[in-house]
């Protein structure tokens, strides 16, 4: 069992580091992990769940606001949702999503329709990608625990 645990732990470590290196996560994610402890063992998972729910809701708001068939696009409405998403992605350490929101906000401010639509598509892909990757990471954690091992603290940098 030990060899399995060691292998899983190594996988977990490597995967975590790659997520940071590829820019999916930044040090705010590290800060979130610091807030998790025996008293709140599922804190990170709960926060991420809320975040992804937020993504679904806000992206749907943006899509509706960008729908030209219902009349003129209300860019302030789009901008408001982008602002919220930027805030929560920043608080969670979702680096790529946050960066997209910054560009998206600019397109809203300049009322650039194509730019907004492009960002909307990208943000949708990006949050889903992140969600899948984090799911994989959590599954690795579960496997380690089920095998009787401890989830390693991963030191980024």
């Amino acid at each position, binding site marked *: 069992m030990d060899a399995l645990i060691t292998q899983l732990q190594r996988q977990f470590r490597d995967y975590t580091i790659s997520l940071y290196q590829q820019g999916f996560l930044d040090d705010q994610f590290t800060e979130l992990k*610091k*807030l998790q402890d025996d*008293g*709140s063992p599922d804190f990170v998972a709960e926060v991420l769940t*809320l975040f992804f729910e*937020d993504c679904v809701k806000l992206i749907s708001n943006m899509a509706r606001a960008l729908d030209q068939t219902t009349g003129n696009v209300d860019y302030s409405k789009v901008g408001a949702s982008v*602002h919220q998403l930027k*805030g*929560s992605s920043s*608080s969670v350490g979702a680096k790529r999503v946050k960066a997209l929101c910054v560009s998206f906000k600019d397109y809203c401010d300049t009322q650039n329709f194509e730019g907004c639509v492009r960002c909307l598509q990208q943000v949708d892909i990006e949050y889903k990608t992140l969600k899948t990757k984090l799911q994989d990471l959590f599954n690795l954690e579960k496997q380690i625990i089920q095998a009787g091992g401890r989830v390693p603290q991963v030191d980024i940098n």
Partner: protein
Amino acid sequence: MGMAAESQFHVLAVDDSLFDRKLIERLLQKSSCQVTTVDSGSKALEFLGLRQGIESNDPNALSTAPVNHQEVEVNLIITDYCMPGMTGFDLLKKVKESSALKNIPVVIMSSENVPARISRCLEEGALEFFVKPVRLADLNKLKPHMMKTKLRSQKMEEIEKPSKDENGSVVAAVVSEIKDSTKTEIEILPLQQDPLLVQQGEQMLSTNNKRKSMEEGISTDRARPRFDGITTAV
């Protein structure tokens, strides 16, 4: 000792976003604070009105059954800036305008780093302005203020209670020192005569150490020399 019950620093956190409320709540709990969260400025004022026992000269005061002052006092308000209806800035102004509430420190949080906004808040009396995402290190900056407020209000309550013991005069002398030394850090408050206060201070500063030393079977009542920064005459 009996005084542990109400000695946790109580923070009222105000934010319209559920996500942000969850975050700030965890951050504050991790910093050993008791937390109450509300989702709007008006709810915050309602909570404060009920809890601080606003006097009847305020026609808008919400009256309530007598509340034990010690147990539900708010020691700090931390609020988001951008909220629908009453903004964090509006809330700050209302708190500072209220004679009952103006001594409660207010911290503003915002996802936007706008220098003009920051200075306006500080000028209006905000203790600190944090740019989101707020981190543990930010809250650590508040610890000295937490100490001062908690000690001052505890001393006030002791003064208000008719005290029959001979510590009465010592307490009065210490209180005037605290009132005068607004910028004094906990390290140099001459509180040797008052083990009650020092013990409170010790609880606030290092609950981990206390737990550890309790496990080791060492009494923490007078174990002053183990802790940095607290002067003592033991």
